[in-house]
């Protein structure tokens, strides 16, 4: 229900973008379409075949879902990475020529770190969300073998991925510093180009500098180029019309980094307990923080996308096409958008309601044998 509407929206909202560049990046979506299709077919088999196929056949029917999920996100990100680092075409009078779709999609400089960053984010968000649900249960006294396994497996995956994400995030920031200096300047609120640029934590960007922030001398040069004296390009290197809305990008970035650091710290706590003490942490505070980590990881994911997408503004295709050239000429887009938002709000409410109802129902047959093993 999201994939269909998404492919509609591409044409409904961005006809200028699709009409001009459809030939360059469309192939990525065509390949993604097949991944999505395969996923839909095997989800049908997996869900409706539960307890009706043999356990082996049922397990095997899950494997194509995993592969299609990986390839699908690869192809979608190939399009996004091309928008950030466009190549594989030339533009003459608003028409593309010399189109090389494979170069455009798979040989651009952003695909590598975007895909690694996003895959890890997927494991982290899913892991913390599932674990958070069982952490709530533990705080309320539901703690059998079933709950313990349901908490530790997703949490282990997320806890192993979260520290790696810190390193990958650093890599991504260094690549952005190199290829999209204006985006980096917006992330950090750096008004003027300077050597040994400081890093600001928190604060608000106004009149070319960060107010009320905590400054770390030479921190930005060190982080972005791993060299404390490196020159970092400021927002003043491009005309005001070519700069993204700094505070939106900067707050989203700080939110992502802050939550990411929190998740990594929580992960180290968990991994330390598991490897050194051979136990899951027993204190209530660990589980309280774990409950927080679930929704926080979703916020970090969305903040990350805001960072990269709003940070690319005013361009939809970096330094090639402005967002204003891509958008539809149709009237009443705010009305259509509001309709869609209201519709999805109802959808979220309905899903929350159905999940609560399912949670109240007795555990399905598949889980019962396991529960029986651990009375209480």
């Amino acid at each position: 229900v999201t994939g269909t509407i998404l492919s509609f929206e591409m044409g409904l909202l961005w006809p200028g973008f699709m009409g001009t560049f459809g030939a360059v990046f469309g192939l990525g979506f065509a390949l993604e379409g097949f991944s999505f299709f395969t996923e839909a077919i095997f989800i049908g088999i997996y869900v409706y075949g539960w307890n009706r196929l043999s356990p082996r056949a049922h397990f095997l029917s899950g494997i194509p879902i995993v592969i299609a999920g990986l390839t699908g996100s690869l192809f979608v990100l190939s399009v996004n990475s091309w928008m950030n680092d466009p190549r594989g075409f030339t533009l003459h009078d608003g028409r593309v020529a010399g189109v090389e779709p494979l170069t455009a999609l798979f040989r651009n400089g952003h695909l590598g770190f975007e895909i690694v960053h996003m895959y890890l984010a997927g494991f982290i968000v899913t892991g913390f969300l599932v674990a958070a649900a069982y952490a709530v249960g533990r705080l309320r006294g539901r703690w059998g073998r079933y709950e313990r396994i349901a908490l530790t497996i997703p949490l282990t995956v997320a806890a192993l991925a979260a520290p790696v994400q810190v390193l990958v995030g650093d890599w991504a920031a260094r690549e952005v510093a190199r290829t999209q200096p204006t985006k980096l300047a917006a992330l950090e609120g750096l008004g003027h180009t300077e050597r040994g640029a400081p890093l600001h934590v928190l604060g608000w960007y106004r009149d070319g500098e960060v107010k009320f922030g905590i400054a770390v001398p030479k921190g930005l040069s060190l982080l972005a180029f791993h060299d404390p004296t490196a020159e970092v390009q400021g927002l003043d290197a491009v005309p005001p019309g070519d700069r993204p809305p700094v505070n939106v990008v900067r707050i989203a970035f700080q939110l992502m980094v802050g939550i990411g650091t929190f998740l990594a710290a929580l992960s180290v706590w968990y991994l330390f307990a598991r490897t050194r003490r051979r136990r899951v942490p027993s204190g209530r505070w660990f589980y309280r923080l774990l409950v927080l980590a679930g929704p926080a990881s979703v916020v970090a994911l969305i903040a990350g996308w805001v960072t990269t997408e709003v940070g690319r503004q005013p361009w939809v295709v970096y330094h090639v096409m402005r967002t204003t050239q891509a958008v539809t000429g149709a009237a009443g887009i705010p009305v259509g958008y509001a309709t869609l938002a209201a519709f999805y709000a109802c959808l979220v409410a309905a899903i929350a309601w159905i999940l609560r109802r399912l949670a109240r129902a007795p555990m399905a047959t598949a889980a019962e044998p396991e529960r029986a093993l651990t009375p209480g």
Partner: protein
Amino acid sequence: MLGLHLYNLPLFFALQGVALYAILAGADFGAGIWTLLAGRGERGRRIRDHAHRSMAPVWEANHVWLIFVLVVIWTGYPAAFASMASTLAVALTAAGLGIVLRGVAYALRSGTGGGVEIRAIDAATAVGSLVAPFALAAAAGGIASRRVPVGNAAGDLWTSWLNPTSIMAGVLALLSSAYLAAVYLAADARRAGDREMAEIFRVRALVAGSVAGVAAVAGAVVVRADARWIFDRLLDAPAVFSVALSVLAGAATLLLVARRHLDTARVSAAVAVAALVGGWALAQNPVLLPGLTVPQAAAPDNVLVLLVISILAGGVILFPSLGLLFELVLRGRFSAAPSAGRGAPAATPAIGLTARIPAKRLAGACFAVGAAFLAIGESAWPHAIGVALLGASIVLGLSALAGEDARE
């Protein structure tokens, strides 16, 4: 004729997608329409349940054909896609919301308690099933009656899909969806051994088919008055052969349903819909939009070649998978009662201490070395090595920790 040119090939595949979508999603929407007309009481409830159960496992896969059509057109014919999507924005938004509503109903229906909740969800299903096929066919009617000009939202947002030809196309789509669904649901019920449902839907198929036939004749009069260009081309060679095939197959389906040859009727009903799509394509060819022919709209040749290769390669994966899904559904594997628990899974043997420690140490070592490569490396290769080592550290860590049942 649809000549065998490279620029026609992706369109040819897209049209097959349109035909499959009209058949499969048409049957799905039709099933939704029948839940609206199921009537009250116990019998009505059983009709709604049959319509729901029969479509649930294939719903999502059926609707992906639409995504296939969209991506092929936007890659192969970007200028045409942008013009259509922007002018027909209102119709396509309505269709999209209708499809989502239909999907949400599937997701929610399994968890409802019954009574008022089920009725609310069935109402949502019915609204989605009426809006989506109408809006999509009305959009097609707008293209066929030359109301979608080239350009960013260059046509009228409302009259492009609310005009005599579009409304006629929308009504016909609703009727033929109901007809298709009744044929399919009757055949499904007979396979499942449910004589009562088979008979109920057989009668509904006969009624819907007859009404659709009358509406098609009335529709032809409307199109002749409103969009003479497409009307003349529909009745000219080569389109007329496809249209005639559609009429014959539609009539043959009525006859087969009347004589209870339900499985054969499934096929002839599908042929009727596919031939109508084919007739429309032949009548329009080579004009996509006024002033824009297929070769003018087509992407560069190398893009088309890659697109066709992707479609063929995708088809190699897709069709066996779809075959498996439909076979499982048609053989009734998904409608059987769930088998009782197959016994507790064997306890996972705890991984020995000796095997565990090296995995943990190795995971730590991979993490440290990978971190160094990623942080210090200045080019693609050290970064790739770093990422691979960090990935290995996650897998090793998982194998060391997930196997043991952690105690508190």
